[in-house]
């Protein structure tokens, strides 16, 4: 299976804080890779490096075989069109309605001018995330779970090949977390995406992961399926599953 994302020897410091010490990660086409770790261990920094939002101090990041660290803004923008990023907060444009939020990437990124196509795609993705009928709502009228769904809808509307999820279930109740996790799986099936999911929610990891990577103290310490890692004899790895 073709490698879609390859991280090799990624290092990143913020001032004196060494956030990433040695991150190596390979994500193959169509895989859902869950990255888990305690808070402040560099999980979010890792996917922000993949998206080109943070430049690492050392190491190589290849996405679709292109070196991200060598890209200028225009090349990064072209790459990001093939990539979707779900932020922890949803990051909805709060001065725009749901309809305008969904139309934004279509008009400004894909340069679609046909209003009928924009409307049809908006309705389609809202149906896909279970938010039919919310088109004319403002983000402030949506609940936490709805905001996540809406953020997901805005991300998948451009049909990305890669999905990066930053803590998709944080701050949600158990039932909604399970629904969002199921949604991540259904998006993978429907849109054939390759995904990296950052989380510390083991229930979400269990539902969504084809493979898991554990980051601790800026280093990848384990790599395997949920079942393999769950039965690990290593105390630190085992502690994530308790």
């Amino acid at each position, binding site marked *: 299976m073709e490698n879609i994302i390859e991280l090799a020897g990624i290092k990143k410091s913020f001032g004196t804080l060494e956030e990433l010490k040695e991150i190596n990660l390979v994500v193959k086409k169509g895989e859902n890779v869950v990255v888990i770790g305690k808070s402040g261990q560099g999980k979010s920094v890792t996917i922000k490096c993949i998206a080109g939002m943070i430049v690492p101090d050392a190491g190589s990041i290849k996405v679709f075989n292109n070196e991200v660290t060598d890209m200028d803004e225009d090349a990064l923008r072209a790459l990001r*069109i093939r990539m979707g990023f779900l932020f922890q907060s949803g990051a909805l444009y*709060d001065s725009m309605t749901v309809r305008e939020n969904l139309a934004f*990437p279509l008009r400004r990124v894909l340069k679609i001018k046909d209003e009928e196509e924009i409307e049809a795609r908006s309705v389609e993705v809202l149906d896909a995330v279970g938010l039919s009928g919310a088109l004319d709502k403002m983000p402030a009228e949506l609940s936490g779970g709805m905001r996540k769904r809406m953020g997901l809808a805005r991300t998948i509307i451009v049909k990305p090949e890669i999905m990066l999820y930053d803590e998709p279930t944080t701050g949600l109740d158990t039932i909604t977390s399970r629904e969002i996790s199921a949604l991540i799986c259904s998006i993978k099936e429907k849109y054939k995406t390759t995904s990296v999911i950052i989380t510390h929610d083991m229930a979400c990891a269990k539902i969504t992961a084809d493979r898991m990577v554990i980051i601790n103290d800026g280093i990848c310490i384990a790599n395997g399926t949920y079942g393999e890692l769950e039965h690990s004899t290593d105390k630190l790895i085992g502690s994530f599953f308790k």
Partner: protein
Amino acid sequence: MAADSSAIKKLLEKIGEQGLFFKAFVRNLFKPGFEWSEFLRQCYFIGYGTVGIVMLTGFILGFVLTLQSLPTLQQFGAQTFVPAMVSVSVVREIGPVITALICAGKIASGIGAELGSMKVSEQIDAMQVSGANPVQYLVVTRILACLLMIPLLTMVADGMAFLGGFTGINVKGGMSSILYFRKTFGGLSFTDLYPAIIKTFFFGFIIGFVGCYKGFNSNKGTESVGLAANSAVVAASIGIIIVDAVAVQLTSSLVYN
């Protein structure tokens, strides 16, 4: 000594950041795909949202300036010079500077707070990571809208100051509207107008640029939104006063001499 060098380093870093932000603005200014709808929306918010306070301030400026100068000039029997004196003062200096300072308070702080909260809630990051161009969409449109609207608002303020002057002169005495406005516009020459108008474009740029820069570079955290708004007003006001001082020196030596 160490504290001094650290402060100098920070200052140089800030100057460097502003230079890079300016470069990003210029680079995106000439990129295809200009956001006309967002530009027009910003022109509407900046222009329509500020015109009321600018009109009121302009009117009061002209009114007060007339009432304050009238008694002194009356002592010399020179009260007929009041309209010309007011018009020259307003057009050359008071109108542009006061309008710009009001706009710094209203527009720069508004832009700083809006972009600051977008930054804090990761909306700008979301825009960037979706492949959209946040500098072109948010920064270029706002700076150009300020560049266009501040000169127009200044002209509105100047006009209202003339009306305020007319009201003021008729409170303390009497002068027909025909005579007043003939004296007002008769006292003005082209050399009074164009340096003032050029100056207002710089003021507009400062207001837009500082507001966008402060908002775009606000650190994470809700407190930084307030700080971005606050520091945008302070920095824009200082910038306006410095540019005005330079403009006065330049026009004094190049135009009025």
